[in-house]
């Protein structure tokens, strides 16, 4: 069974609709998944004109009505935005709609109509004006699924990385790491890959200090205090996990295939290797949402300045869809 990937349309005044239409012209995506856009069919029609795509926009009211064929874009049509919405402007209507596409995506994932969510960018200001005071996508997802322990994953061709901490200063990141968090993220890594069809995922954890502390020479025992108890707890539950290892050699080893996923302690430790390994188009992945919901996202914003001009690059969108189908639970 191919996984159904629900693509939320994002802010209708931004580049989301056009990069979705562009991305879905790639036939290979249809060979691997069933994509369905959660948005407004008339806005996709407009995007189709903008990018001059030879496709049919197919409005559906349940995922089951979708045809999932290349050349047709199925749209779970929520009909929330007016057809003449201006490009590139903050609109409460579009902000409200962008929120509702995501909320509907979560509902469809909970009922297993879709197996993963891929989100196009929303505009924070527009969403706030539309009445939904969230800092961003991740917080909506966490709130609507009642999740506290989630984590950010990055996925490249040869490397998957999951983070103990992300958007905090470097010193704060070290403070925030503790055995419980380490255990939780190791378990998330294990379970996510297991559900995605990897029968025996191998996880390895980076050290916090240079050379993973080199037996106390280059550290003050942070590995022993913050990481090792969490790793051991996971091992006792039968999870295949190793470490902490010196981060510089660990990423090299993971890149050549020694491990399926690396647990990074802080933002730059995990992001730098994925980018060095040549992931041009970035994909953010939220894992750990309750119900095992996988959410992937492009790494750029609504780009109001170029919206409606057929300039926006769809590569990040394609990678996000690919990551979604890759990590979607396999049955």
């Amino acid at each position, binding site marked *: 069974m191919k996984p159904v990937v629900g693509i939320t349309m994002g802010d209708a005044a931004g580049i989301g609709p056009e990069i979705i239409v562009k991305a879905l012209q790639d036939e290979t995506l249809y060979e691997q998944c069933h994509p369905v856009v959660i948005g407004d069919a008339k806005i996709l029609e407009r995007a189709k004109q903008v990018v001059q795509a030879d496709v049919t926009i197919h409005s559906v009211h349940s995922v089951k009505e979708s045809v999932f064929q290349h050349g047709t874009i199925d749209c779970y049509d929520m009909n929330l935005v007016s057809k003449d919405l201006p490009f590139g402007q903050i609109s409460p209507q579009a902000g409200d709609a962008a929120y509702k596409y995501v909320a509907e995506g979560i509902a469809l994932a909970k009922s297993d109509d879709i197996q993963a969510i891929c989100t196009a960018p929303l505009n924070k200001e527009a969403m706030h004006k539309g009445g939904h005071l969230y800092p961003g996508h991740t917080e909506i997802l966490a709130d609507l699924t009642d999740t506290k322990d989630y984590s950010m994953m990055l996925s490249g061709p040869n490397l998957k990385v999951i983070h103990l901490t*992300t*958007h*905090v*200063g*470097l*010193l704060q990141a*070290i403070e925030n790491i503790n055995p419980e968090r380490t255990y939780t993220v190791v378990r998330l890594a294990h379970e996510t890959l297991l559900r995605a069809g990897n029968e025996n995922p191998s996880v390895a954890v980076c050290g*916090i*200090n*240079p*050379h993973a*502390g*080199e037996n106390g*020479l*280059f*550290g*003050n025992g*942070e590995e022993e205090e913050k990481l090792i108890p969490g790793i051991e707890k996971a091992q006792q539950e039968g999870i295949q996990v190793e470490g902490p290892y010196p*981060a*510089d*050699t660990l*990423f*090299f080893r993971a*890149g050549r295939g020694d491990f399926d996923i690396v647990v990074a302690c*802080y*933002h*730059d*430790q995990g*992001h*730098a*290797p994925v*980018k*060095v*390994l*040549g992931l041009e188009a970035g994909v953010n992945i939220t894992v750990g949402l309750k119900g095992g919901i996988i959410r992937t996202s492009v790494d750029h914003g609504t780009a109001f300045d170029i919206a409606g001009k057929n300039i926006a690059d769809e590569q990040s969108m394609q990678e996000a869809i690919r990551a979604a189908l890759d990590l979607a639970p396999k049955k």
Partner: protein
Amino acid sequence: MDKQTITLTLGDSSGIGPELVVKALNDMDLRDSANWIIVGDEEIFNKGMKIAGKTLTYNRISNIEEFDPQAGNLWFIDLNNMNASDYNIGELSAASGKQSGEALKYAMNIALDNYADAVVYGPLNKDALHKGGFNFHDDLHFFADLLNCKEGFGEVNVMDDLWVTRVTSHIPLREVRENISEERVRKTIEFAHGILTQANIENPKLAVSALNPHAGDNGLLGDEEYDIIKPAIEKVQNKGINVAGPYPSDTILNERKKLDFDCMIAMYHDQAQIGMKLLGFNRGVTISGGLPVILTTPAHGTAFDIAGKNKADEGAMIHAMRKAQDLISKEVTQK
């Protein structure tokens, strides 16, 4: 112009060092480009030749006074300081550590006495050196101690034409912040400028990385970028040094083309080392800069798991020998 004279050590005798030195010197262009004086134990070297399946012809001498550049370009000073029964290839041993430390010290002294222009050393094993009686924090401080140096030195990594150095090195990540000051960032930039200039890179372009994710995200994730790093960059820019930043450290290396730089200046160890190892685990060279003796080595370790099997790639050893030549070429010309 006289040929450069470079001393070589075999590194830890239980590791891949001896076989790598043999294989590197089997490259005739490289060998003819300088006078090479190997310092070590001859039996270990013979073993290295056996492993590599190559026989090198060299002049054996017992001290540097006997070296005569007219009489050949490959020399061996036999310290005769190892018993074959005291070590096994592929196994960590105090004897190997002691032997490799003594050889390195000897090679450095030759350079200090101006008989040689640089030292290239084979991979060392820190545990073995510790067990062999050499106590030190990291390689760089080991050398600085041996050379009686207190400050102004730093580790530099080079891969192909990409250079990297860092403000802090082998210290706990938690202590990085308190060890970064405007002065230290400025001095590291100037140090980088100096060493790249020494290697004949004219007006080298330097890029400084940030400390916090997203370079602090306008103060949201940290103030160090604005309070410390930026002012340091501006000060050295005023001295005419070509430097820019701070850039987010997760994208600086993969945006190298766009940012156009020769050397990255990292704030901490892993910030630079993760990317460098991914870009070429076995091609990198480590330079201990700012010391009275030019010191280079392959960036990889002793690789006990493949030692003695003639599997190790001599590429980084060759790069280390070439890089030493780059660093001294100017000095020799000036003599």
